[in-house]
């Protein structure tokens, strides 16, 4: 392996790019879960976001519409989830699973006409700085705007949940919907908003895959990333910053193990392929050992159905 600094910079840049969909989806799901709603439909919303984004790109030839459209379609799918779980009070787990299955099937059906169409170049920012500054250039520059947004998002989410009134309300609803309701908070409305926000972020994560990361539509192209995002939220004990760390470790080891193979290190390939999963769990478990903090962050009423007695 060549160890010059610029190469390491390129490597870090690649790792950052591969963790973007995880950060976006997990950050969205984190807000949803902090309000006490467990939406297992992340994979389904991502894949619908991916196909909607790509289809709109082909039809309108406008990347802005494509990105917005992917968020709207993720939002619409999560609205279905909201209607079922919040208004019709169905079970969160079953409904979320159904949403994923529906999303995968639906995307394949819509996608039939969009297979095999090459994607459009997505503008990357500060490309000249990427080339001209060694090491730091490839880390900080030459990325899409969505990547910068994704890396800011966990910090914004953290601030939002901890320091703002709305964040406090969401946490209150997630911890004790009954008390929140008694305080005059419209629990259902708060939860609806959080579900819709989560859906939009998952849609955006999907669009990142189909518009930027592998610019094309391919059936099942999310490849289980939605499930990894879900697991990240839990292992990061509902802390946005730890979600970011977890996503970077996962993306990092995924990329590094490919490099280790390319270098010809004599480590069993099967072990290398399992490494991202093992390491992400180990690291997140180790950094989240403070049980007091876990208690503080865990939405107590997660996945429980709430209805206001009239």
């Amino acid at each position, binding site marked *: 392996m060549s160890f010059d600094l610029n190469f390491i910079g*390129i490597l870090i840049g690649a790792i950052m790019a591969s963790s973007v969909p995880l950060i976006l989806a997990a950050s969205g799901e984190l807000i949803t879960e902090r309000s006490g709603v467990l939406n297992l439909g992340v994979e389904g919303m991502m894949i619908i976001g991916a196909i909607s984004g790509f289809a709109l790109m082909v039809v309108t030839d406008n990347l802005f519409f494509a990105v917005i459209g992917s968020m709207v379609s993720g939002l619409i799918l999560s609205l279905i989830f909201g209607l079922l779980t919040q208004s019709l009070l169905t079970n969160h787990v079953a409904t979320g699973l159904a949403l994923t299955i529906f999303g995968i099937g639906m995307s394949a059906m819509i996608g039939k006409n969009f297979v095999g169409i090459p994607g459009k170049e997505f503008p990357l920012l500060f490309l000249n700085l990427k080339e001209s500054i060694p090491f730091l250039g490839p880390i900080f520059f030459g990325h899409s705007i969505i990547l910068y947004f994704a890396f800011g998002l966990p910090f914004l989410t953290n601030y939002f949940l901890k320091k703002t009134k709305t964040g406090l309300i969401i946490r209150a609803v997630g911890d004790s919907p009954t008390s929140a309701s008694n305080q005059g908070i419209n629990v259902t409305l708060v939860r609806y908003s959080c579900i819709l926000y989560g859906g939009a972020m998952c849609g955006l994560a999907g669009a990142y895959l189909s518009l930027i990361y*592998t610019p094309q539509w391919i059936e099942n192209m999310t*490849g289980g990333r939605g499930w990894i995002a879900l697991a990240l939220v839990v292992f990061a004990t509902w802390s946005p910053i730890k979600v970011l760390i977890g996503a970077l470790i996962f993306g990092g080891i*995924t*990329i590094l193990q490919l490099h280790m*193979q*390319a270098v010809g290190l004599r480590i069993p390939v099967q072990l290398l392929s399992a490494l991202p999963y093992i390491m992400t769990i180990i690291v997140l478990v180790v950094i989240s050992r403070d049980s007091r903090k876990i208690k503080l962050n865990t939405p107590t009423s997660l996945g429980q159905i709430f209805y206001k007695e009239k």
Partner: protein
Amino acid sequence: MYKLFLRSLISVLFLLGLSLNANAEFKVGFVYVGPTGDHGWTYQHDEGRKAVEAAGIKTTYVESVPEGADAERVIRQLAQSGHDLIFTTSFGYMDPTNKVAKDFPNVKFEHATGYKREHSNVATYSARFYEGRTLLGHMAGKMTKTNTIGYIASFPIPEVIRGINAMTLAAQKVNPDIKTKIVWVFTWYDPGKESEAAQALIDQGADIIMQHTDSTAPVQVAEKAGVWSFGQASDMQRFAPKSILTSIIDDWAPYYVERSIAARDGTWKQQDTWHGLKEGMVAMAPYNSAMGSDLVKEVEQLQKDLASGKAHSFTGPIYDQKGNILVAEGAVADDGMLAGMNVYVKGVEGDIPQ
């Protein structure tokens, strides 16, 4: 009364049987490992199916069938629902195909790229893709500046290892300094993973990317990075117009039509088919003129020689990684050796995953 009932029952059953028989139109079923829109492996098989359909034979297909328990279920379902000939088009369908074939002796089965024909109603067929890989190796050896060829491999089966070896041998012949770097992704089809693998190989200095996986993601990564690439299974040129030097094309259509007609007319026999450039089951997409007309001519000549048998992909002396001789000087590897190939030749880096 009882006898009357029995008699009418028998006649009803008899009529039912007759009518079923009359409805039993000749049908051919296909089982695919990926979606028909992968623009690679499965896409080409489906083009073959369409040719069968065009020849006036009814076909059905099931796509994206995982290699495992699901495969057996799908194949059994096709056999039960009145298909007379079933093509199972991925290596991992080998055991399920043979298992189902045992229970349906009247249905004919054709398994692609496998070697097990446990029952008289199972035939196998494959293409000599390695001949195409030899051509790629020749071009790669000539075109690389970094002397590093990146290879995205799927599963450690003889078929894939044969391709890696054929390519490396041909590249070494024109450029003794080349190194083949391999990344195993353990999937036939995962665009995200395939593009990450391609990027890793490029970052490790490879300026030629080739793949034994089915999506167009690696050639797109190569196009973006400004390195050369080769398409797999079908012509992927429009996904990477600047980067692709050529594609290996699998042309299954003539074989599928021939075998379907044979099965319909009752002349189908068990056999093991292994066709290559000569028969046209392996074809090459147009060569990219960016590699220069001299090289294009060279490659075209080599293609002719491989097709005519004047040249062979595995001509001795060939050594394994440790330096032991595999094929003696002047000899060529026989089909038995090719079919079971499970060692790397000298010049390939790393170990085969066990």
